[in-house]
């Protein structure tokens, strides 16, 4: 399963673009674009997604290279954390009022 929007019928392949907006932050997905190869994909990404200094670093990934979770299993696949609220700090209420906990 690749990302939505990819099609072998296009002249140029689809790339997904990730931008790091500032040092200290992670790259975030901003959108996609078409380009013949990785060099031009990076240049197009710069022109398309960072015209107003929105980024200090860009990643491009061929859309075909991305594997996604199975959409049909959407509920079940993410069900495991349900009912496991003991994984959150807020589950432990007896320490309420005790400082620095």
């Amino acid at each position, binding site marked *: 399963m690749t990302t939505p929007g990819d099609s072998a019928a296009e*002249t140029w392949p689809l790339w997904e673009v990730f931008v790091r907006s500032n040092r200290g932050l992670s790259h975030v997905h901003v*959108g996609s674009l078409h380009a013949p*190869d990785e060099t031009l994909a990076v240049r197009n990404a710069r022109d398309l997604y960072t015209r107003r200094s929105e980024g200090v670093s860009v990643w491009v990934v061929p859309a075909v290279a991305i594997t996604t979770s199975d959409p049909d299993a959407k509920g079940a696949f993410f069900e495991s954390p349900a009912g496991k609220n003991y994984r959150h700090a807020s589950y432990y209420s007896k320490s309420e009022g005790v400082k620095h906990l």
Partner: protein
Amino acid sequence: MPTCAEISDVHYLSVGRTPGFPTTTAVNADQEPMMTSTITPDTSAAVDISDEEQQFNDLIEADSRIEPRDWMPEGYRKSLVRQISQHAHSEIIGMQPEANWITRAPSLKRKAILMAKVQDEAGHGLYLYSAAQTLGATRDDMTNALIAGKARYSSIFNYPTPTWADMGSIGWLVDGAAICNQVPLCRASYGPYGRAMVRICKEESFHQRQGFEILLELMAGTEEQREMAQDSVNRWYWPALQMFGPPDDDSPNSAQSMAWKIKRHSNDELRQRFVNMLVPQAAVLGVTLPDPDLHFNEETQQWDLGEIDWTEFHEVLAGRGPNNAQRLQRRRDAHEDGQWVREAAAAYARKQSALTTTLETAAS
């Protein structure tokens, strides 16, 4: 007046909400038997909806977002592909009326601004094409439909730009109307469309302000410059109002689009909102809006406008506007002239990747 702050709020709101929406699957499972037992046979079609359709309805109901891999009704998908691709085509065709003035801009500063703006329009078109692609449409198909004259785009871009003041009117009136239309689309129920609109709206506010400034400067100029500005506003005012689409009672797709929460407000509602913002802005500029019937309604506290010429709108939409043929021809030429470049770049990329594969195989 939509401000950047308002747009950003919308953005954070939708981003914050998406991961947290409650899973409704369990609730549906509980409700189903109860529903079947209380419904009479003739309405059985209403209950006979699949789990996935129920989930879609629940997401819309909860004002959450539909994402590309979710199940969606065929009509919803088609409606979105139509709207988003038309929107993308409008951005791309919309580059032409302004490109007309890049070589003739009155100063280097104005030229640089105009180039940045036209580049933005190209960017907006690309964001939107990408959004449409997540629904299964291909870029090549959409482009081919446009250059074959089978796809629609906003009728406004079929009007000519004979004077420099038109750069002002396009920014103030056309981009102003577009913003009014687009700010609510940032909350469209389809995730990728809403996200593209957030990005676009942020950039459009520069477009509107620079247009306003061009007109303001002309209005502070010579008698001839003031006349040029007024003449331009006279020509663009009505077509800008038509950008919101036909009146509500003549807009067949609107109701369904609003039920699906793609659209949030009706055409007339948005048009009214736009005119209410325009009147005080026109006063600041010192231009007259070319509608003798325009007056303030004390009762509704709104500006009532005169009759809009819908025959003209339909004529332009049907391809009989002043510049339809030229706009399409230019787009077609540009696409066909670029054909060899696209193919050469693709061939080069294939060759390079074959070379890399060969080298890797040799090395191992």
